[in-house]
């Protein structure tokens, strides 16, 4: 599904290399988790994959179902099935959450040559999905993320993911800022989307999310590279011992 080879990325405006030859393969139907120290490049990886400005790919490639995505505009990547749940969801004053969702859903459908969702079908679907994430009608009406609590923002990300039904879902610290119940809701939302045709890349610092979203593979990202890959037990090792041991071993 997603295949990243020797990805090297620097900041556009600064002479600062952040990703230093990253290799990663996420298969359809699988959940891969990425853990790693602060500043190791996890968010950078997610931004580069979704097409944010400010980064320069100096080497390597990234393909989604065989298609080179690094050349695509962010919206084209979205239409190709890429989705990023932001570590810090953006507030957009003046744009209603509902308008935003409908515009996004229909834009993707259009880009894929599908018919737009009718207003009533859309409403029905949003309401149902919002309900399972305990997002109330008021939050749907409000401007995108404006005045949302940290946890509400994260649930809103998952609602967008549920509506857009992407092929590859990247979740960047979706668990941060969530209380125990919200974490369960979010995990249920993610698990409901697990499917043999969909891949997940879950970035997190904590095992507790992985208790709910069981990963197939766990990677450790440090200093711009994947330094270790293993099964779920690797996350437990990090939880218990931190990164020092792993990093020393790989150095």
């Amino acid at each position, binding site marked *: 599904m997603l295949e990243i080879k020797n990805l090297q990325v620097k900041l556009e405006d600064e002479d600062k290399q952040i990703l230093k030859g990253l290799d990663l393969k996420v298969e359809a139907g699988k959940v891969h988790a990425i853990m790693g120290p602060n500043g190791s490049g996890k968010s950078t990886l997610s931004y580069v994959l*979704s*097409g*944010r*400005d400010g980064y320069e790919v100096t080497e390597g490639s990234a393909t989604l179902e065989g298609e080179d995505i690094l050349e695509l*505009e*962010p*919206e084209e*990547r*979205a*239409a190709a099935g890429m*989705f*990023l749940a*932001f570590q810090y*969801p*953006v*507030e*957009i*004053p*003046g*744009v209603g959450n509902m*308008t*935003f969702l409908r*515009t*996004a*859903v229909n*834009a*993707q459908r259009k*880009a894929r040559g599908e018919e737009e969702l009718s207003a009533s079908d859309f409403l029905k679907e949003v309401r149902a999905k919002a309900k399972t994430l305990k997002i109330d009608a008021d939050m749907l009406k409000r*401007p*995108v993320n404006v005045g949302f609590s940290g946890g509400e923002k994260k649930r809103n990300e998952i609602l*967008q993911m549920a509506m*857009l039904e992407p092929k590859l879902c990247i979740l960047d610290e979706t668990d941060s800022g969530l209380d125990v119940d919200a974490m369960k809701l979010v995990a249920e939302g993610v698990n409901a989307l697990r499917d043999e045709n969909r891949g997940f890349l879950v970035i997190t610092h904590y095992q507790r999310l992985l208790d709910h979203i069981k990963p197939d593979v766990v990677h450790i990202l440090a200093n711009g590279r994947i330094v270790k890959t293993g099964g779920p037990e690797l996350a437990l090792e990090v939880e218990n011992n931190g990164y020092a041991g792993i990093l020393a071993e790989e150095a």
Partner: protein
Amino acid sequence: MALPEVKQSATEARLLALTLPESGCLKAARQAALSRVQTMGLPSRRDEYWKYTKPDTLVQADAPKAAVFHADEVPMFNAFERLNIVFVDGVFDAEASDHLEIEGLTIDRIEDICCKDIHWAKDLYGVLEARGQTPVERPLAALNTAFASDGVAIRVTGKVSKPLNFTYVHSDENSDAILHHVIRVESGAEVTVLENGPAASRFNKCMEIDIADGGTMHLVRAQGRDHERRAATHLFARLGTESVFKSFTLTVNGVLTRNEAVIELTGDDAVAHIAGACVGDGDFHHDDTVFITHDAVNCESRQVFKKVLRNGATGVFQGKILVKEGAQKTDGYQISQSLLLDDDSQFLAKPELEIYADDVACSHGSTSGAIDEEGLFYLRSRGVPHAEATDLMTLAFLAEAVDEIEDAEIAADIVSRLEGWLARRR
């Protein structure tokens, strides 16, 4: 004091091209206004109040030619139940207008004020304009009072069931229109007035609005889509106790627009909201000049102006809140913002507060900025194409001003026009 020579000769040249209409009982008011013009002289580039906007083409004897624009869309506000009052190039068109009769108000043309002996109108015509000449001079308004060739006098006595709608048609590329309306909203009465259209190649419009205690008026206007037209408009409003006046103006296109609003809150607990949204592309200069005087206790005023500018367009905002001695518990809010879609466009703002009372809450802010890149990326990452995302962000920027319109249907019509404007520029 003698006027500077340049101003003197420019004023004389303009006056030479005009003739004072023969109108019995308004004659004194017109004469007085004419002498105000002669004393003040017409605006020139040297004037502090015209620092950001060149008045030349608004002042010169002949109106610059402006091509008539034929829009391929249903005119604004057409879908609403309304009483339509049509002016073509500044001349009332009885044929095209509805029958001017509706419960709760009377409408007369200003030329009929005298023969019908309409006292209230006689007592209002030119009065608010004259009051509005201090502390800042507004010579184009005085010129209007003196030479207005048409307009209506509206007296609102009850709750009017549907809006009045002024349709200002521009049909002659050399037209030069001067219209003057006087509106009196009586105690407890309520009316919505809509205005739509460019009116002429050059349009000088003056509206004097006197709202008695407990009266309410909503004004929503759109200044047409003609690119080459010019307009200088003045809104003078005086608000009595517990009265409400809310105005919103949409400006798309037009090479030059100067909209002045001069509001006096003279009765306690009165509310005045003045808002505007403008979108300009290229040869576009738009100036909102607002002067709000708080002269009573516990009044609220709000100014919300948003400008979207691209391809070298210019936006100007001069807004002042004057709180007089004794106008305690004043709540004054003023925001003017521009969204610059490129580096060539500019926004010039001069927000001012002058306060002589101690128990007041006044705030003002002015900002100028580009589209929020973070927001744009967020939208695009969800699959919204760049152009569409930019439009969404632009409409979102304008929303605070559009939200000042209370009627949801009218607001929706305004939004759809803005969407159209943006879509045509993709």
